[in-house]
């Protein structure tokens, strides 16, 4: 049994998603290890983002279960939670393929909004905080400290009071990850985090992801197109094609899997042996 199957943070079973007659995801099952970087790859239109949207609650799957297991606590059935509960109670955070920052708010404000759940509890239904409750002031100081911590981690502390919309693209990507981390997730889902980054920024992103895994001890689940990034940082790769899972394993296993090569090269099954032999000298 593979290492991710022993203590999965997320266990997806028989996930199926229909859009009318279109089967976007067809009976997909996989595990995401608690301390792994797991990558979801596949050709365009394979259903990667649909899987993400199901996990993070933006779609309700047609069939299947998604179990989120907290370390020594309860298990949540993600398909039964509302989208905001998936972050607030099950502690799954996500970023978006096309960055969704609050562009008219400052970098710091973006990180404060991310800590809404905790702060709002401390604000005593708002009325307490309007009257100047001390517990809220303490919670806010702690929230600013957490925000400052993440700004230092992503190297944006000098730009804390800049509107998020004014940041360069690479900084926006990192800010979105910092914002997701400010919700203190157990599972961080990144939708193409390296898209649009240059080689140096992409390198920095890899280091950030390593440091998150090492220090926060959380699971990172990402969609990525850039194979060099995926092969370099992932512990575990899941390959989708036409909504079906076609492979699941370590980077080495995936690299050698003929069906993955075929899916990426687009070769019919009967010609597969020749195609593989051409690719691999």
């Amino acid at each position, binding site marked *: 049994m593979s290492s991710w199957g022993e203590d999965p943070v997320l266990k997806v079973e028989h996930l199926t998603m229909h859009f009318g007659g279109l089967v976007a995801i067809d009976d997909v099952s996989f595990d995401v290890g608690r301390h792994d970087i797991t990558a979801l790859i596949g050709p365009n239109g394979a259903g990667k983002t649909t899987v993400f949207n199901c996990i993070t609650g933006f779609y309700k799957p047609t069939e299947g279960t998604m179990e989120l297991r907290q370390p020594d606590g309860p298990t949540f059935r993600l398909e039964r939670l509302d989208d*905001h509960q998936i972050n*607030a109670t099950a502690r799954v955070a996500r970023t978006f393929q096309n960055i969704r920052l*609050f562009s008219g708010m400052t970098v710091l404000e973006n990180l404060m909004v991310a800590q809404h759940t905790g702060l*709002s509890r401390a604000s005593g239904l708002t009325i307490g*905080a309007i009257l100047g409750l001390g517990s809220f002031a303490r919670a806010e100081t702690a929230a600013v400290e957490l925000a400052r911590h993440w700004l230092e981690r992503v190297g944006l502390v000098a730009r804390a*009071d800049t509107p998020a919309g004014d940041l360069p693209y690479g900084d926006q990507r990192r800010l979105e990850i910092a914002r997701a981390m400010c919700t203190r997730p157990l599972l961080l889902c990144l939708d193409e985090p390296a898209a649009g980054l240059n080689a140096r920024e992409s390198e920095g992103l890899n280091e950030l992801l390593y440091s998150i895994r090492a220090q926060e001890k959380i699971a990172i689940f990402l969609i990525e197109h850039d194979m060099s990034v995926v092969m370099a940082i992932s512990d575990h790769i899941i390959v989708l094609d036409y909504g079906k899972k076609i492979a699941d394993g370590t980077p080495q296993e995936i690299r050698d899997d003929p069906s993955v090569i075929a899916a990426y090269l687009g070769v019919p099954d009967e010609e597969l042996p020749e195609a593989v032999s051409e690719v691999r000298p």
Partner: protein
Amino acid sequence: MAEPGTSFGQRLTLALWDSFLAGLIAFALFSLVLGLRTEDNVTGLTLQPRPLLLAVAVGIVFFGRLLLDLFVWQAEHPLTDPFARLFTRDGFDRRDVTVLGGTAVLAVLGIILATALGAPAYALIAVAVLAFIALGLLRRAIVHLFPDLPYARIFVTAGILFALFFPLTTYALESAFHLGMPLRYWFDLSILVLTYVMLGWGLNIVVGLAGLLDLGYVAFYAVGAYTFALLATHFGLGFWICLPIAGLAAAAWGIILGFPVLRLRGDYLAIVTLAFGEIIRIVLLNWTEVTNGPNGISSIPKPTFFGLPFSPFANSTTFAQFFGLKYDPLHGIIFLYYVILALALLTNLVTLRMRRLPIGRAWEAMREDEIACRSLGINTTITKLTAFATGALFGGLAGGFFATRQGFISPESFTFIESAIILAIVVLGGMGSQLGVAIAAVVLVGGFEALRHTDGLQSFFGAGFDPALYRMLLFGIAMVGIMVWRPRGLISSRAPTITLGDAQAIPAKLVEEGRA
């Protein structure tokens, strides 16, 4: 501005062609509106052509456009630049001095000439031009001498101090020296303006912060007013009990409206809230047993000063007797002024405080991006409902105050035009900006009122001219002007709610507008 190297001849040709087109459009538009008039004769309605008026209107458009083309839009050095530079910190060059000085000399000559010819109204225009230049120079002088003063804060403090002391000071002056100031009128107008400031601030929570376009805000105003009126007239409850209940009732209706519109965004939301406003008004109009229908509810009691009534005589001690003053109807009005001032400031303080709390940040985040909000664990359903409820609460409080001030309410006070004016105040002021909304309320409501008392205009347009009739036209022109020059409202930048270092205003182009 003209491209460099174009000769005057080319520019003139372009300008003439452009003005010809503008004149043509003006002719097409005005030919029916101004060029023809229906007159009621013995024989029935007849069409009366008015070619002269039409020619004058088209001529104004043609020559106006020509002058603008030649001296502003296509000129190498637009004639308006020196006037714009007057209100910046940039230095003047020789051209600017020539233009400004020349204008000032012309204005002085105009004053002398107009006075000599006995046309004081025209002299007023020249005085206004001079005042404009003087104001600009004064502003430059102040900014030059004290470049780092927090001008916005000084302006706000001065405004609040003025609002706090204006009635007492003028009243004291009037009682001491009998200057004959129309105090009653001033106070009534101030109360009206403050009511709209409060309504603007209330709606600003929904539209400006949460980004939910609400066209039926007057419904909450109506709910507050009727709740107050019914409680006060049927159960004899006092002002300080009825007022919060009116606010809470409106907030409850805010939540009731919130539920069905949770899934709607933008235009659809606007239409449903518009319909909600109309439903409330029509129910008030037709539910005669409770609301007395179109006849409205009358003799709503006036507020008392902690139990002391403001009346010349009463069963209990009156306000004047208690303090040993001579009875003056102005006492009650000054009290009303301070009540609405306190309510408006309360609205402002609560809004400013809430902006810095999780709920306020969630509102603004929802305006920016609702999907990202949900991915961060924010319950957008509750966030929307709180925005509607908080906005409605202040609308209801303002409605309760309106009921007690008027002493009479009927559905006619709560038509769509009220919603439109309140929304216009928010949009013109700058969505999300408290100061902008206050300025817009003063200018719009106070400006409309000032039109009734602008006698100088009659000397231009004839004795029968009533400027108040043109207020919707001016309103429209103001709207178009703001949308052209300041599409995000008078004060459109956004102040951050929390900072690590120095605060910097966020330019409007980055901030989302009400659409969700």
